[in-house]
């Protein structure tokens, strides 16, 4: 079961259609069963039965998740692959001691991989949709995987199977989510 985590300002918010359902659509079309839960309602049991976890993005003005670090402590313990998308990457970075810096990006941007990784195999460069008000200063224990002209676009934990991407793969880069869902565990 794939666990899709909603990071929006409240459960069943108007933003869920925009930032959670498109990701759920990719998971569904890829043939995986999934469950959507709001980040404030995750339990140890929910996390224990998840095979992979996706942390979804939020609206540009929605940074409520960043003020609730207590909801993301589990990221330091989890042992299944996690992909944090935009706000998901930001929450992941904060959970490991990283910081956010104001850096607005709206629209298509060129992304260039700076380190080989199975997640971006055969895609050394691609164009991606960015929608964020802050970029990430990645924490210790993580490596840069991809950058744009303005900021880090992807990171990976050096030990745990944790990925963060700042761009929105649900727009024109669904392959990133599909790759995350299907790539062998060991490749992490």
């Amino acid at each position, binding site marked *: 079961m794939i666990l899709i985590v909603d990071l929006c300002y409240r459960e*069943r*918010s*108007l*933003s869920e*259609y*925009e930032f959670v*359902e*498109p990701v759920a*659509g990719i998971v569904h079309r890829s043939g995986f069963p999934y469950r959507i839960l709001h980040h404030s309602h995750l339990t140890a049991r929910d996390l224990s039965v998840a095979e992979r976890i996706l942390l979804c993005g939020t*609206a*540009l*003005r*929605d940074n409520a998740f960043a003020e609730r670090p207590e909801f993301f402590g589990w990221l330091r313990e989890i042992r299944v692959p996690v992909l944090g998308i935009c706000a998901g990457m930001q929450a992941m970075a904060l959970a490991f001691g990283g910081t956010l810096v104001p850096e*607005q990006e*709206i*629209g*298509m941007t060129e992304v260039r991989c700076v380190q080989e990784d199975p997640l971006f195999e055969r895609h050394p460069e691609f164009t991606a*949709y960015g*929608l964020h*008000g802050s970029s990430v200063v990645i924490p210790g224990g993580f490596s840069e995987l991809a950058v744009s002209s303005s900021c880090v676009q992807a990171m990976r934990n050096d030990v745990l199977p944790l990925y963060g991407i700042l761009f929105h793969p*649900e*727009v*024109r880069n669904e392959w990133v989510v599909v790759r995350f869902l299907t790539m062998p565990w060991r490749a992490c």
Partner: protein
Amino acid sequence: MKLGVLFSGGKDSSFACWRAMQHEEVACLISVLSRNEESYMFHTPNIRWVPLQAEAAGLPLVQGETEGREGAELEDLRQVIRLAMDLHGIEGVVTGALQSVYQASRIQRICADLNLWCFNPLWHAEPYRYLKELLGAGFRVVVAGVFSSPFDASWLGREMDGQVLRDLEGIAHTHRITLTGEGGEYETFVLDAPFFRKRIAIQAAEKDYRNHRGTYRITRAVLEAK
């Protein structure tokens, strides 16, 4: 949260409005009347009937005009949104954008500049599921314009129903159009919606069609009790 809905009178902005109403407070509709028929951002064949739709919905309408020149029309949109902020205290904007990064990112930038939330509740919605939900919810929608092969004049003024959906699916398959008309292949006009207090009755309309391009221009319409 008080929201203003960018409203063109077509199915997408109407459905986005309805979704917004289920989660937040819709304080007003916002529309921009473009004098440029080629405007990619704003032009629809029956934009002049938006005030009647707003009256049907019982919602205030903040309306602006634009010459429709690229770049300038975005500044005109910004001014109308700012007016909606002043008049109705909106804290965010809702759009009916489905797939267009061009449209969505421009409106996102305006909202960011004005410190407003931006919601796109149809963003990357699965097309068939969305249209089924639209019709199932009780929206009454007519085809107000066609701008692509193989649409012929018979499509103009046709009310969307299960058969239209099946026909659109067939055309989408054979002619590579988008099922929702997101690529500008067809335009729609909403006669009734779950949030309308009254419905619109078209009393007269003109069809103009040539070379796979045509419009169904409403010339007389009134509100009816539901």
